[in-house]
Each structure stands twice: as C-alpha cells, then as structure tokens.
C-alpha cells in the first residue's frame, strides 16, 4: 500500500504536493524533501563559501519554513522558482550579516593557492575542479547565483529573473560578466580538446 502511495506521489507535480502538504500530508512533504534537498544543499554550499555545516543548517531552516508557513506558497506559482527564491533570499541575508560583521575577507587563503605557480601550470581535471570552485568564490553574490541557476539547475533566463526578482536583461548581463570573469581567471588552463 505504502509502496503504491509512494509511486503515486512520485508522479505528482511539485505544486500539487505542496497543496497536499498544506493539508498536513506527510508523504507529500517527504517527497518534496527528496526532490529538492540535494539541489538546495548544493546551492547553499556554493553560495555560502563552501561551508558544509552552514549549508546543512540552511537546508533544515528552509524546510522548517515550509512546515511552519506552507501558505506562503501561493497557488499558481511554480514551486521550484518559489523555493529557490526563498533560498536566495536566505543567502542574501547571510551576505548582509557577514558584511555587517566584516566577516567577508577580500583575499582568502584560497587566493594564495590560486597564485601558486605549481598549480597554475600542472593542469589536471581535479585541479581544474578546485580552481573552478575557487574562481566561483571570486564572483559576487548575484553573479554566482545566476551562474549556478543557469549551469547547475539548467533554469531558463526567465525563471532566474523570477527567482532573483529582476529583469531578464539584468540576468543576461550578470551571466555575461560572470562568464567573462571566470574565463579570465581560468585562462591559464589548457583549452578543451
């Protein structure tokens, strides 16, 4: 029976699951958690300076918000857009908090690694991953968010604009500058064959 229900829930859309969740349906909550927990955790991880414990905390917090105030999700909206906009706002608040406390260092230890000559010339895939992540950290909050939404979540420009509450032109501009900056930072690595 449970198995059948599970399958049934898997076929449901995010939005209908959310409607069931509002009525107190636990299985719909679990299904939504399984669909989005990993994606959200990755987003938090990338946005919050690759701090895993903090990202786990943020993941818990966002789902607590869903449990406490499920009515904040309005009918007719796309769930993925809504949940990512909530996640983005949480990150924005964290950035503000950090800036107020002067906790964001302009030059991190990662940067020292970046200029390590051995690393620059000895290119490997693993190393590229590391350098790519370090370069991603050098983007500002908005550029980083659009890049992740576009190339990790494969969201459209329109969806990203909706999440970030800005125009599509702004999203394109942020994407363009983020790509240019990342390309500039990673130009010392051998090109794709």
């Amino acid at each position, binding site marked *: 029976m449970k198995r059948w229900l599970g399958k049934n829930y898997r076929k449901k859309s995010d939005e209908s699951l959310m409607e069931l969740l509002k009525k107190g349906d636990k299985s719909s909550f679990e299904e939504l958690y399984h669909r989005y927990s990993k994606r959200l955790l990755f987003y938090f991880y990338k946005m919050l300076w690759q701090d895993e414990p903090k990202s786990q905390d943020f993941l818990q917090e966002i789902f607590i918000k869903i449990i*406490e105030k499920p009515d904040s999700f309005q009918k007719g909206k796309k769930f993925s857009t809504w949940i990512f906009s909530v996640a983005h706002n949480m990150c924005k608040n964290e950035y503000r908090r950090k800036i107020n406390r002067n906790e964001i260092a302009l030059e991190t230890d990662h940067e020292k690694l970046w200029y390590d000559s051995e690393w620059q010339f000895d290119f490997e895939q693993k190393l*590229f991953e590391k350098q790519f992540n370090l370069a991603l950290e050098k983007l500002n909050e908005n550029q980083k968010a659009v890049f992740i939404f576009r190339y990790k979540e494969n969201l459209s420009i329109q969806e990203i604009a909706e999440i970030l509450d800005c125009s599509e032109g702004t999203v394109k501009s942020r994407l363009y500058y983020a790509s240019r900056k990342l*390309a500039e930072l990673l130009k010392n690595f051998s090109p794709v064959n």
Partner: protein
Amino acid sequence: MENFDGIKNYEKLEALLLKCSFNELSEQEREKAKQWAGSKENFESLRKLLLDGKKVLQREEALVPSTEIFENLSSEFSLRNQSSKRINISLNTLAKYPIPLYQVGIAAMIFFVFFFFLNDDNSVQKDLAPEIVIKTDTVFQLTKQIDTVYLEREVVVEKPVYFTQNEEEEEMQSDGFAEKFEKDPFLDFQAKKDFNNETVGITMEEDSTFMEFQTKGI
C-alpha cells in the same frame, strides 16, 4: 569596455559556445561570435569555461543532506500536524464504523415518533400566532446638580502711613488724618508746604498717592 551586443544576445552566444569551437563555426556565425564575445580568444576561453564548468557543477555528488535533518523535519512535521490529524482520524473512524441495519431502523423510528409528538398541530399554530411582549426596561438618567461654593477672598486695603519728626505733628499720622487725606488729596500740598517749611516731617515723595497725582499732573 561594455559589450552590450554580447549581453543582449547572451542566449545566442551561449548556444554558439556550446555548439562547437570557433574554427568549426560558419563564416556568418564566426562574425557574430566575434562581435558578441569580443574576440576569437575570448570565445574559446568562454567555451572552455562553459563546457568544463558545467561538467564540474553537474559532477558534484559528494554533498549529501544529513539524515538527521530528514528525521528532525519529519518529527517536526508530525508534531505540527498532530491536532488536525487527530480530528481527521476520529471523523474517519466515525464514518467507517459498521452499524447493523436494524439499529439504524430503530433509531429512525424513534426519531419520527418524537418528531410527531413534539410537533402536533396546536403547537404549530401556537408557534405561528403572533405574541405581543411588553418589555419594561430601566433607564438610568444622569442629572446634573450645580452647587454654590464659597471661597475666601482676601481684601487688601492700602492706608498711607506718615512719619513725623515732630511730636506735634503726630496727629497727622493718625487714621483720621489718612481718611481726611483720601477725601481731600490737596491736603498733601499743604502737608508738603509744611514739610518744606520744616514744620511737618512727612516724606510725601514716598507716599504712593502723592506719586500717583504727580504723574497725572495734578
């Protein structure tokens, strides 16, 4: 320098970047690619970034949500929705509770009997007849009463005081003289005259009444 063309056509540029390398593009596409990316080198570096960067982002599988989080959230959800669930369960059990048909029949009969006994014709007519009900309410009225309050008032009476050097002129210090002076202010001219003649020791300048007349020019 700002490349507005590149920004405006970012989606098209992205499609070209993901399609193939610069050399593999058609002549027309190369032109556009150069225009949007700025140069051939820029195009190649952007292409490399998108291809490799995308791979890196898609490959990140090491991050797994903690199992504790799911457990905590599940219990939190159950706790929050406990009260509503309890009502649902009781309603469901009531709806699904099996009742024998004869019991339902007896219950229905009892209901009809009570209905006919309690709602006979008289009682229905009685109910329909309009009744006049007189109601008496107590209304409290506020009345205002004005009382006379007596207040004590202090009255200050000014009396001129005269100083004499001469015992003979003591008479002028008396109340009688002051009353006379009030009645006939010209008396002080006489008194001043007497003072000037060193016959009376009155300092008329200190007298307020004198000063008052003096200012009026009398």
